[in-house]
């Protein structure tokens, strides 16, 4: 099953690439079909997941590089399943959002991204994880560089270089971890579960701090955390709508997921040691991200910068190392994927109509196009963390978790200012863009665009009102990790 979720989109990408299809009619239908099919399949795994037992399902281990101690080991648990289900959903949304594109390559790249992202979330072997982590970069580079806005090449190469710097250090740390853990395991192994089983040994290594930061650097760049975030405003702003949805909805999540999956599980002692520093970074991301959002004049850039603020909560929740905090981090990531995906979708559709992203040039959008304006309104409210929408629960749990831990408590007080400032930024945006009287008519959403927005609206509301649709899964993923962490810390 996992294999199918990873490789069906990749195979479909090759198929789409080979189609003789100048208008991309068949390509976009194939892409949509594959995305919907894998969405159903992943939902089925999601629903069938035994939340009371936890553990990994659809696990698969194939011999791949036995000489080096790496195997193709994939599996899904409560931590990865929400993202594995979110990936095909956002792919389907992106395909619908790009329905007017006429390049088959664009759709092939989306499918490649989908497969590689699922691979990232499903990997249970360090090398396999790295493989997919890197494989995401190339299609994203081309998506930005070929179909982006005016500064696309600069943004694309900046994204590539930033990500690479992180991932090469991660590769070095992975190799070092595997070889340094070899005495405890009796052999060199890159298998995640085997390495986790010797986390106690890893904690005693003198180099543990270096290994921790090797991993953390890659994930903090991806997340992104201030001051490693400067690639994000460019990449998100210059990417085409579908690219922005992928970036915000899924690529950033690789950072938070990686921090929990690797930094927390393999090096809990180091995480505890550096929790204070991480909490400061999180706090700066929250407050600084909110202020920078306030200052933006470009609507896409505004949303991009609000992501820095949102991801700060994720880091805060992780730094607290409490169950609630981790819950909040994962919940916030899923919620952010849905809500920010929706924001980028709406802003992209709006920019297609107004041919500008300048906030100053827009006025009365709600008046001119009520459906578009209404959905954007909802998305912006979700972005400020309005209770009743998904974002609130994520932020609230992260802050609560932060409050429960001694190390993060003082920062929570300051983080509250971030909430206020970001709320101000979002409300001011609503006032400037949506309210007022329209000067010219805007075409409202067509049925395809409504179909793209509908699932995200539904999820934003569902996850805001019914946390039980997600919490048990997170719990099944987080509790075993915390039990392990307690054991190692003792």
């Amino acid at each position, binding site marked *: 099953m996992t294999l199918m979720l990873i490789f069906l989109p990749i195979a479909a990408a090759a198929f789409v690439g080979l189609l003789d299809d100048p208008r991309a009619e068949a390509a976009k239908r194939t892409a949509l079909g594959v995305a919907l099919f894998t969405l159903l399949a992943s939902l089925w795994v999601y629903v069938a997941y035994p939340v009371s037992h936890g553990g990994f399902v659809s696990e698969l281990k194939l011999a791949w590089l036995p000489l080096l101690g790496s195997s193709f080991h994939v599996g899904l648990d409560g931590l990865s399943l929400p993202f594995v289900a979110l990936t095909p959903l956002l792919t389907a949304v992106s395909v619908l959002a790009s329905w007017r594109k006429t390049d088959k390559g664009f759709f092939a790249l989306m499918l490649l991204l989908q497969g590689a992202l699922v691979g990232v979330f499903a990997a249970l072997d360090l090398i396999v994880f790295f493989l997919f982590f890197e*494989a995401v970069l190339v299609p994203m580079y081309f998506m930005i560089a070929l179909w982006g806005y005016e500064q696309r090449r600069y943004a694309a190469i900046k994204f*590539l270089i930033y990500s690479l710097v992180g991932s090469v250090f991660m590769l070095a740390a992975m190799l*070092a971890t595997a*070889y340094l853990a070899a005495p405890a395991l009796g052999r060199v192994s890159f298998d995640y579960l085997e390495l986790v089983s010797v986390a106690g040994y890893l904690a005693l290594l003198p180099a543990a701090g270096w290994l921790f930061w090797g991993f953390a650097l890659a994930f903090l760049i991806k997340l992104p955390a201030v001051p490693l975030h400067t690639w994000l405003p460019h990449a998100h702003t210059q990417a085409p709508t579908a690219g922005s949805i992928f970036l915000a909805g899924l690529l950033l999540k690789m950072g938070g997921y990686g921090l929990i999956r690797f930094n927390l599980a393999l090096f809990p002692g180091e995480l505890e040691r550096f929790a204070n520093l991480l909490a400061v970074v999180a706090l700066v991301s929250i407050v600084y991200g909110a202020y920078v959002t306030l200052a933006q004049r470009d609507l896409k850039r505004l949303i991009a910068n609000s992501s820095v603020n949102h991801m700060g909560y994720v880091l805060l929740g992780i730094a607290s190392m409490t169950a609630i905090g981790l819950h909040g981090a994962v919940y916030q990531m899923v919620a952010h994927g849905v809500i920010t995906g929706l924001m980028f979708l709406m802003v992209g559709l709006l920019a297609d109509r107004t041919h500008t992203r300048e906030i100053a040039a827009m006025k009365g959008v709600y008046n001119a196009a009520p459906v578009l304006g209404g959905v954007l309104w909802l998305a912006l409210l979700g972005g400020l963390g309005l209770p009743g929408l998904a974002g609130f629960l994520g932020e609230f749990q992260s802050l609560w978790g932060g409050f429960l831990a001694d190390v993060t408590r003082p920062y929570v007080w300051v983080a509250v200012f971030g909430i206020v400032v970001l709320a101000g930024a979002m409300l001011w945006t609503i006032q400037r863009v949506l309210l007022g009287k329209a000067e010219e008519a805007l075409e409202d959403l067509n049925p395809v665009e409504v179909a793209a927005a509908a699932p995200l609206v539904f999820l934003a509301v569902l996850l805001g009102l019914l946390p039980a649709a997600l919490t048990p899964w997170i719990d099944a993923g987080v509790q075993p990790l915390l039990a392990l962490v307690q054991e190692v810390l003792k």
Partner: protein
Amino acid sequence: MTLAVIVLLAFGGLVLALAAPNFDDRPGALGALSGTVFGAALILGLLAAGEEGVLYGAVQLGPLTALAIVLLSLVGLLVAAGATIRPGGFALGSGEVHALVMWGVLGGVLLVGSAHLLIFYLALELSAYSTYVLVGYDRERRFGTEAAAKYMMLGAVGSALLLFGMALVYAETGSLGYGGIAAGLAYQTSALALGGLALMLVGLGFKLAWVPFHAWAPDAYQGAFPLMAGFLSTAPKTALALGLAVLLVRAFGGAGSVVAGWIGGLALVSVVLGSLWALLQTDLKRLLAYSTIVHMGFLGLALSTASLTGFTAVGYYLVAYIVTSLGLFLVLEALEAGGIASTLEAWKGLGRRHPLVGVLVAVFVLSLAGVPLLAGFLAKFYVFAALAQAGAWAALVVAVVMVVFGYYFYFRILAAVFLDAPGEEAPALDFSPTALSLVILLALAVVALGVWPQPVLDWLHVAVASLF
């Protein structure tokens, strides 16, 4: 079998050189003949893995020699096929190309199989002289002659230093056979012997184009036909890397670890400076020359660990590099034959004018950069694993950082191919079907090696393990 290969290649080259003038108007026939010889050599090489013993006290038989035969015959086969791409052949005739390639391959095989420094030197010169002529083949243009002259001058300096080093080693140990040298260096190493080894390494450094002995490489690549540059960047390097591994284990005895340390230093400098210089290039062949320098640096890092993992990494790196680099040079050859110069400027918009060629270029370039699921990534990864196993953390960190620079200059090629619009007066793109099928085959090999490397790795592991 090894003896048969040596005879076959020597006489095959002779026949081709003599028969060549009669076939100048039919390059296909010569290519087929030469390809048959290399194919036969390749099969014999596969069969030769089980052999044991030493031939006439000079050529070591065994899996490693067989490995060299297989890899070098593969290069020869691909170059022989590539020599038929140019309509009308090369200005100087195609037959001599095949003969020289064949002797170059023969030199390489003997270099790896050698058990005696004299044979090592002769094999090196045989391979070097073939490439001197091949580099200068484009004599109608100024760059071709200049390239050959420069390459030959510096090559001669390298050979002289190598000989001097050998003489010093002989003075110390009283032997030129690998076994005798190893016995002489087993317990203590005098300053004389170390000086000799250092000079030998400098001489080999010239041939492998390690910084600071690399100065000839960019000019030689730029002046040569892309096919010859492709041969130059694969065959001699393969032979030298494997030959150096043999020397380290079998001949240098107790001094092996010292020499390995020097190799590591040269390799690291090559990786760092090569990557930085490559950022400045606009001529594709010069860029690929610096890319070769960087790759030889990575290879040297693996050699410097002098471990089983390290040498397996060397083997895999060579396999990956042969298919990737030759694939890219064949694309260059086919495009130059079609009138498109090998510069970033001329390549602008290539992906839009011919999407399939664009994708094939992307596969090779991404593999050179080290993108996962392609051969080049696993090659680098294996090198890093060898460094981690050896505990060479500083070298590992420097090497992984340089990968980022590598990405930048390789993505400049892709940016030109895919992002730039084609120039106004771009000539019509005429890509030879022979070249296309060859290149597609190599691209598939790059993907296959990246996704399912295990069979090749097992085979290499066995061959390399015979060294220890």
